[in-house]
């Protein structure tokens, strides 16, 4: 019954922040488990309420936690955390514990590795791959980071591969101030100038920290590179489907268009579009309903948004409106009800 919503082995839920992605991802995952599938939902920074509903806590950063079981199906939940995954990867790929220790001790790694652009996204992909390769699940539902740049993660594997191959990195592994190597005079003069300039602007300590980090990291590059390639293949595989969640109203349509265009460009498989938090029609005005004008406006506004989206994709995409819940789901029962509603909308 949920065939259209839960396509293949992997569903990636994307969309701008604040549109209710995480709740919908959780509801879909629960529905999948109730249908007898071994299901995992991976989520970033879920709300307290949802954490309670799923019964997950901090320890879900390390290992998926069992949320429920029914017949042959079950639901596990895992929390994504960039620093956690990064640390674990280093332990996995480092040739020996000393190499891992050097990275952990590096100031640049401690201060900044977590905030480097694209790292969180890449780490999410890394963890996803690990889970998928474990063979423990029939279906994985991934909730993506709540930023407008959320689609960065699609490029994350490529970016990681490019970074490893880049001239900057190669340069850092063989820097100009390495006096042990004989260099000709012209090179020395140019190099001295370049060093003085960057010293003046950026400060040498920063460069030294970065170079030290890259050197410590170098033995891990090959592992990262081949893994990044596998992740890229997985995201474009036939069994992987992207589910776009959009906010209601015409103001949110540009956000949805942005995601759709990006997914199309990058050649990923797009499933139906869910337009969430749509205000229902308030019906005729009661005599003392002061708020009726507002409710009327909100219902009309959300219908205008849907019409606009439909006119932009005539017949090409299934666009499913999801009504605004009076109270957001707070436990497994209400999440299950939300899934039933989704499945019912889908089959009509």
């Amino acid at each position, binding site marked *: 019954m949920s065939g259209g919503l839960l396509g293949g082995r992997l569903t990636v839920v994307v969309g701008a922040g604040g549109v209710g992605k995480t709740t919908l991802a959780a509801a879909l995952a629960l529905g999948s488990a109730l249908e007898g599938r071994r299901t995992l939902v991976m989520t970033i920074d879920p709300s307290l309420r949802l954490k309670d509903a799923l019964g997950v806590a901090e320890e879900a950063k390390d290992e998926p936690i069992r949320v429920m079981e029914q017949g042959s199906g079950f639901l596990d939940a895992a929390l994504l955390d960039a620093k956690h995954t990064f640390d674990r990867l280093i332990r996995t790929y480092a040739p020996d514990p000393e190499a891992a220790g050097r990275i952990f001790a590096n100031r640049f790694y401690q201060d900044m590795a977590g905030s480097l652009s694209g790292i969180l996204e890449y780490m999410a992909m890394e963890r996803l791959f690990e889970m998928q390769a474990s063979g423990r699940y029939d279906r994985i539902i991934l909730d993506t980071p*709540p*930023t407008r740049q959320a689609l960065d993660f699609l490029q994350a594997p490529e970016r990681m591969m490019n970074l490893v191959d*880049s001239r900057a990195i190669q340069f850092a592994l063989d820097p100009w101030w390495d006096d042990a190597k004989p260099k000709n005079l012209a090179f020395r003069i140019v190099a001295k100038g370049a060093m003085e300039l960057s010293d003046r602007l950026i400060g040498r300590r920063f460069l030294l920290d970065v170079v030290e980090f890259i050197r410590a990291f170098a033995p891990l590059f090959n592992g990262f590179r081949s893994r990044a390639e596998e992740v890229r293949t997985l995201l474009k595989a036939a069994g992987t489907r992207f589910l776009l969640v959009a906010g209601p109203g015409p103001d949110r349509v540009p956000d949805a268009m942005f995601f759709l265009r990006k997914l199309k460009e990058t050649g990923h498989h797009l499933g139906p579009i869910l337009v969430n938090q749509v205000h229902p029609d308030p019906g005729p005005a009661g*005599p003392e309903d002061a708020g009726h004008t507002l409710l009327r406006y909100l219902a009309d506004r959300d219908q205008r948004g849907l019409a606009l989206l439909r006119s932009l994709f005539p017949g090409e995409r299934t666009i499913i409106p999801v009504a605004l819940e009076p109270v957001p789901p707070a436990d497994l029962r209400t999440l299950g009800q939300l899934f039933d509603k989704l499945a019912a909308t889908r089959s009509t």
Partner: protein
Amino acid sequence: MPALDRLAERQLLVVTGKGGVGKTTLAAVLGRLLAARGKRVLLLEVDPRESLHQALGTEPSGGAIVPAGHGLSIQNLQPAAVIEGLVREKVPIAYFARKITESVAFRQFVEGAPGLKETALLGYAYRVLHEGRKPSADLVIVDAPATGHSATMLAAPRLLAQAAQGGQLGEMAAELAAYLTDGSRCGVVLATLAEEMPIQETLELIELLRTQQGRPPSLVVANGMYPAPPPGAAQTGATSLWRARRQLNEAELARLAAAWDGPLLELPLLPLDRGPALVEALAARFMEVDR
């Protein structure tokens, strides 16, 4: 003392919050109100997909400064362009400057260096306010980018100053970091919705501002509040939805108020699309509730 009086004493205001909480509209409302007090206000937008011009009914900026009514102008700013401008200034020979900005290593540095882009933007705002004999604005309002971690922008200069200690870049960043934590000159306005996740992030952000920057936000604004249902309203499906949302709003606002005793204003959900009419109506409402 009304919150607006206090905001009018600042030079730089950073409006921040999660995506979709009405941050851009709030920035436009503040811009209008402060310009109406005789300030020359520049509103800086950072998102490459411009929307500030829609709120104020002007042409899109495309990087240029665009007038948006009495005393108010807007500008859409791209961090990479600001950084390239800085390189051109520091490296006077155009050929070398171009070589640098076109190099792969430079691009990766701009992308990867922690806090560089955000620092460049705040640095631009600082220069607008302080450069030359007669600066072109008295007050700059930054509509901060919607990121997962909205604290990132404010923490950026300090992070960069630590990383690039000893260089000119680090010194500039350190100066800017000191400026940003000076509560008498810079203010932070937090936009939020009275819903669980936005309130959660707002509470975390207030805590971060207190601990990392040593100062609380100047103002917290809860946008999009459902109005209180009138007593004795009919119990239809629609009004019960409205009641439930209002209750949720009130409960979340109470959670915020329990941890935040500073200035807090509520702005209502209005039956208007994004645009100048909405900005005017919210500005009028702001003046009513701000006392």
